């Protein structure tokens, strides 16, 4: 692919900007790498990297849970774990995969990529970004600390009351769950806010709405969904469930006028959009991958964008289809059925567009591309079953059975993991400056592809054969043994595939082939800077004149100059047409985000035992806020953009 590297135009660091670059180096100097520098860093790339790494650690831990569960279910009446342990395992598996991996890993990737893709120097609110990460980390550790201290939540990842209420869930297990949810929701909301602002106000000059990369669109949609969905569950878990359990409120106590169904509504109002929050970024990745490896702009860009928005919108009209077995009026059911069926349309549309793109383009079957295709193959199956279970009568048969387990694993593994692996192979060079091994990559892909289907396809049959989910064992007479054994075998394959992936990452990081700025000849701005990018991403900032800048620009990418280099200054552009608007100085390294996160940690973890934790926590937060908001030197924060002019126009 040497020729592509040559072909790709980049911002040449050794151009006329040496002096400024030198100054930038001083401005952005941090002793990142040393511990203190590491904890105080606010660079979205370093945060993004550790975010991604953390997510994968949780992914592996939660995956191991699944492994044990599969072992337990491999044979009827198996005694590897008892019901008590098993319930903790599947609850933590679900919780971790949802709250600590699927959603945050996408946030993490976005944290790293979006600023590069929109061609800005930093993410909006860099310290908030750091704070988000620390909060997430504390929450994640708390969950697994719980599991390993036999305090793992054991009421399922949607913790239905009253089973999760004070009377039936003894001890602190469910409290741990409730607070972990809170931590992750905070992190999620924080990231969403940054993304929305970054995308709306910090795009490179010229990157008008109709030139925003599809991945960035998907992140924008998801960020909005997060803002609307997550408060619902945060309130339900932190306020209501935690308060019921800690200080005996009666939100979910039917006897005193509360209502257990209220929980289900609040949870699923978040829980269903959550599914789309997980895989819409995946769709974005697939677009990016297909675009890159077919060397062709995605077909019907407006349709794709529209599809994303429709999906994001309709996603909020589906939650009741998780509750068909509860008292819901006939009409209501029909409406939610209709919505659940119709949401298939936008996704379908996207799939057709990708196919068209492939048809019209020159596919190169790299590992990344393979994963993108694998996504279409696997995810579509999940989509099909999804449409089926939108049907009330049918859902009432398979609801809470292994059919559902199969369905959502197809959707999530198909919609999240395939694109994610694809994205890893695509962006690894950008992040590390080295290529990943394609051979290992192919192994990784095929093992994963086979593993997923071997594991989860039989579950459809198990479900139809009457096997409920969340059972720690089953009777030999049920005749579910064979299929379960197969599924377990499949799980082993998946594990091996992930092992290969990890090995590939480690070895490539150590000694992969050196990648240039743009090894794939991709069109996005993120490829217009060195790999790995400098702390300031771009200098000078690029100017965009089309949807695929690097393909459309000639030898040299137009740039905009004039941003100060003696301080961390970023360019603010208008929301619609990305016309330079003004410039804004960003803060430097700070330890306050960490302090703040610890304050939050003390509050919520302490609240598992005593309400006084809130008092203490608020005090600590106040201090942290003070330090955070302390005035930052004499530089006028914002200035008009005199002198900042796109070069191209200067010509």
């Amino acid at each position, binding site marked *: 692919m040497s020729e592509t590297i040559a072909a790709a135009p980049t911002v040449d660091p050794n151009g006329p900007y040496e002096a400024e670059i030198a100054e930038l180096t001083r401005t952005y100097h941090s002793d990142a790498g040393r*511990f203190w520098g590491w904890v105080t860093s606010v660079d979205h790339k370093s945060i993004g990297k550790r975010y991604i790494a953390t997510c994968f650690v949780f992914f592996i831990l939660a995956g191991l849970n699944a492994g044990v569960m599969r072992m337990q279910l491999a044979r009827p009446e198996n005694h590897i774990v008892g019901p008590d342990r098993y319930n903790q395992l599947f609850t933590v598996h679900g919780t971790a995969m949802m709250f600590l991996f699927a959603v945050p890993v996408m946030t993490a990737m976005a944290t790293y990529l979006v600023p590069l893709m929109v061609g800005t120097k930093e993410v909006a609110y860099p310290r908030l970004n750091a704070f988000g990460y620390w909060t997430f980390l504390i929450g994640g550790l708390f969950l697994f600390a*719980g599991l390993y201290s036999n305090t793992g939540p054991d009421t399922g990842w949607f913790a239905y009351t009253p089973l999760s209420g004070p009377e039936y869930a003894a001890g602190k297990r469910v409290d741990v769950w409730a607070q972990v949810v809170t931590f992750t929701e905070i992190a999620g909301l924080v990231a969403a806010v940054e993304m929305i602002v970054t995308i709306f106000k910090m795009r490179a000059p010229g990157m008008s709405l109709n030139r925003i990369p599809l991945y960035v669109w998907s992140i924008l949609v998801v960020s909005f969904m997060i803002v609307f969905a997550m408060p619902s569950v945060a309130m339900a878990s932190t306020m209501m469930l935690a308060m019921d359990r800690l200080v005996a409120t009666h939100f979910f106590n039917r006897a005193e006028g509360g209502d257990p169904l209220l929980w289900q509504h609040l949870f699923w109002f978040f829980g269903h959009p959550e599914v789309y929050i997980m895989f819409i970024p995946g769709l974005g990745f697939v677009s990016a991958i297909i675009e890159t490896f077919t060397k062709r702009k995605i077909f019907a860009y407006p349709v794709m964008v529209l599809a994303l928005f429709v999906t994001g919108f309709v996603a909020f009209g589906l939650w009741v289809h998780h509750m068909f077995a509860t008292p819901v009026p006939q009409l209501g059911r029909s409406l939610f059925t209709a919505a659940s069926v119709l949401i298939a349309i936008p996704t379908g549309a996207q799939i057709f567009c990708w196919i068209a793109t492939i048809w019209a383009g020159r596919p190169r079957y790299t590992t990344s591309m393979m994963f993108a295709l694998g996504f279409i193959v696997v995810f579509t199956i999940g989509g099909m079953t999804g449409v089926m279970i939108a049907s009330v009568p049918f859902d009432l048969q398979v609801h809470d059975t292994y059919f559902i387990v199969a369905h959502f694993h197809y959707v999530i593994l198909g919609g999240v993991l395939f694109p994610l692996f694809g994205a890893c192979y695509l962006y690894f060079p950008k992040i590390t400056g080295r290529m990943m091994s394609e051979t290992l990559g192919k192994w990784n892909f095929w093992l994963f592809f086979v593993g997923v289907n071997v594991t989860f396809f039989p579950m459809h049959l198990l479900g139809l054969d009457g096997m409920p989910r969340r059972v720690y064992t089953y009777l030999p007479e049920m005749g579910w043994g064979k299929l379960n054994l197969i599924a377990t075998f499949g799980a082993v394959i998946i594990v091996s595939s992930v092992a290969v992936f990890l090995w590939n990452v480690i070895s490539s990081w150590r000694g992969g082939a050196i990648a240039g700025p743009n090894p794939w000849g991709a069109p996005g701005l993120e490829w217009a800077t060195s790999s790995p990018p400098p702390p300031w991403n771009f200098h000078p900032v690029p100017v965009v004149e089309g949807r695929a800048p690097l393909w459309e620009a000639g030898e040299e990418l137009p740039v905009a100059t004039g941003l100060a280099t003696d301080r961390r200054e970023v360019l603010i552009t208008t929301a619609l047409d990305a016309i330079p608007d003004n410039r804004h100085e960003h803060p430097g390294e700070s330890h306050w985000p960490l302090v703040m996160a610890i304050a939050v940690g003390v509050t919520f973890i302490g609240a598992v035992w005593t309400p006084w934790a809130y008092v203490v926590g608020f005090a600590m937060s106040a201090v942290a806020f003070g330090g955070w908001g302390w005035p930052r030197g004499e530089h006028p924060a914002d200035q008009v953009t005199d002198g900042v002019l796109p070069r191209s126009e200067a010509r």
Partner: protein
Amino acid sequence: MRRLSTVRAVSFAVASFLFATSVAGCRREERRFRESPPSATPTTVRVSALQPGTMQDTTHARNPYENNAYAQSEGQRLFGWYNCAGCHANGGGGMGPPLMDDQWIYGSSPENIYTTIIQGRPNGMPSFAGKIPTTQVWQLVTYVRSLSAQNSTGARSSRTDHMMMYPGSSSLQDPEKPKNSFRPPASEMP
């Protein structure tokens, strides 16, 4: 490798965090379904449940469940199932004396309460020897002690899914450390 030093620092922090929490959790969260050997008092046939049962040596009996959350919630359930609540209400008493105050006619230690349940007491407390297995008696003991906040609040459930019994407080009232006060018998106590 500067990065490594970072990694090491972080992993150390993580490790110590995990360790700390794990120590905290275990005892309270244990679910011991099956004491081996499965323990239960042998079923003996008796004329009347209301006469004190055969004396039992409980001197070196120790509550295996003190501060165990699961045992406490089990005890709470059994307290209703076995009609303890019928006489003692939800701790406030009625036909029987209250269990949430600081007056304990026959002692408030786990052993005392165990003996009271097993042997009964002369002024109306029936003997449940041979009717409630040892494990469950200890679970009841654990719950009963929680009523007067004698064991860990961390293990206690804040409320049941029933009528609000203790208006104005989560699980129970401002704890009072019980003192064993021996009241004059018969006519004075229910």
